[in-house]
């Protein structure tokens, strides 16, 4: 107890009860960027546009998903021994018209989601050291949604 809660990466998401990813928006073209782009708008032809900080939609739908059956190599930091598989989802945000990757929260398996499943953004501990817990954004199936169908493994 008493560990300090820190983001695993600076200024990519807000830390609160309803966390949101932080992006930037090219004000002239209307294009969003995540991770936030600060140098220049990458929308071709809009180099002189202003990039404004925006908080992205915190819900979306699954574009696709997979899992990690083997422990990823360094710099991934293992959180359990033996390794426990985790799910990774690519989630489509309607307003921003983009797909963003994230791990799914602990306990979600590939049988719990399918393409189109509504998801929301939450924060969960990615790894800890003696003094701090480092949190990251994760995707969580929205509880009130119709249970996922299909997409059985076999």
């Amino acid at each position, binding site marked *: 107890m008493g560990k300090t809660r820190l983001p695993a*990466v600076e200024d990519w998401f807000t830390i609160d009860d309803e966390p949101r990813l932080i992006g930037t928006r090219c004000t002239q073209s209307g294009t969003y960027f995540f991770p936030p782009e600060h140098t220049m708008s990458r*929308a*071709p032809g809009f180099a002189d546009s202003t990039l404004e900080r925006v908080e992205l939609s915190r819900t979306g739908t699954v574009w*696709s998903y*997979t*899992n990690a059956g083997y422990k*990823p190599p360094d*710099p991934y930091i293992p959180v359990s021994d033996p390794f426990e598989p985790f799910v*990774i989802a690519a989630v489509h945000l309607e307003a921003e018209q983009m797909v963003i990757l994230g791990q799914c929260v602990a306990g979600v398996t590939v049988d719990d989601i399918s393409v189109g499943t509504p998801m929301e953004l939450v924060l969960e501990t990615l790894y800890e050291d003696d003094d701090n817990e480092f949190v990251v954004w994760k995707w969580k199936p929205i509880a009130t949604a119709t249970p996922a169908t299909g997409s059985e493994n076999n």
Partner: protein
Amino acid sequence: MVEPVAIIGVGMHPWGKWGRNFVEYGVAAIRDALADARIEHTDVQFIAGADTMRNGYPGYVAGATFAQAMGWTGIPVTSAYGACASGVMAIEAARQRILAGLCDVALVVGADTTPKGFLAPAKGERGNDPDWLRFRLLGATNPTYFGLYARRRMDLFGDTEEDFAQIKIKNARNGLNNPNARFRKEYTAEEVAASPMVADPLRLLHICATSDGGAAVILASMEWAKAHGHTNPARISGVSTVTPTFPNVVIDMPNFSTDSAAGLPVAPRSFKEAIGDAAYAQAGIGPDDIDVAEVYDLSSALELDWYEDLGFCAPGDAHKLLRDGHTHMDGRLPVNPSGGLACFGEAVPAQAIAQVCELTWQVRGEATGRQVEGAKTGISANQGLFGHGSSVIVTRP
């Protein structure tokens, strides 16, 4: 259309897990290619090396490394890196030299020695490098992305795990008699299904290994080739090294997100479709003209993506081509007669060059034990992370 260049020599060092210096593999491939071309090293006027990122400084300057290893002759060199597409970047550098009239004969070489297991990012704390961050923040390996593509095929198009297994089985059978292949063993659907899950729905036997290997090609102007006894050489008729068009709405390695399509319209052709389009346009041909294809089966499911992206069928129909046997050795468009990455594993800087070696043997009718009958026109395709397209069209009338 673009003027062709002749492929006068090809050579490979067998793929494997030999654990030796990558330079050895490259030199062996070069010597085979020189012998095949019936020329001496001193006849080469330009060397383009495809870089490896896992073998220290000599790997970053592959062109010079191989120029030195073969014996300095004072010629210009270049070194190219485009991840899995590095080999084609080197081929393109050599082709440009020849087409610009700056040289007659150019050598292209790539070789690698790879570590075991997942390809991992460069070491150190590198918080501005998306390739480092994706491992740290997401635990997203290369197979993660392959798994996302495969699962989406299943949910959208009705592909099955059995389809993915049949790709592995087909390619394993194709490569049985290929002396350069690392894995020469037949598999059953049961064996594939029993292999451990790596990135759902992809199992270990759906995903290519990392390998050691080396490949080289010697290119020449058509005029020089004909004047030196190569009366009807295989030729490179198209080379594609295209990048994506903004907004790219398909998630690509090693990114955290796609581009946003909220502001600007999405191009009518996807990045992977554009890769083949550019090669076809240069060669002045289309998908119907292709007799044989070597495509990047980093995962078995990715081979199906290429059928659609290269225009062999409509989006979503790839599994029909497979199930109907069209892409088997006795079908109308055999894919990966070499055995593909399923039999080779990936030696990153050598792989795109190896694809061109195989297509050259195919159009010459020299692919013993895996020859596509009457093959005149072949296409290769692959994609390197960070937005590198790679495709080559090889023809021999």
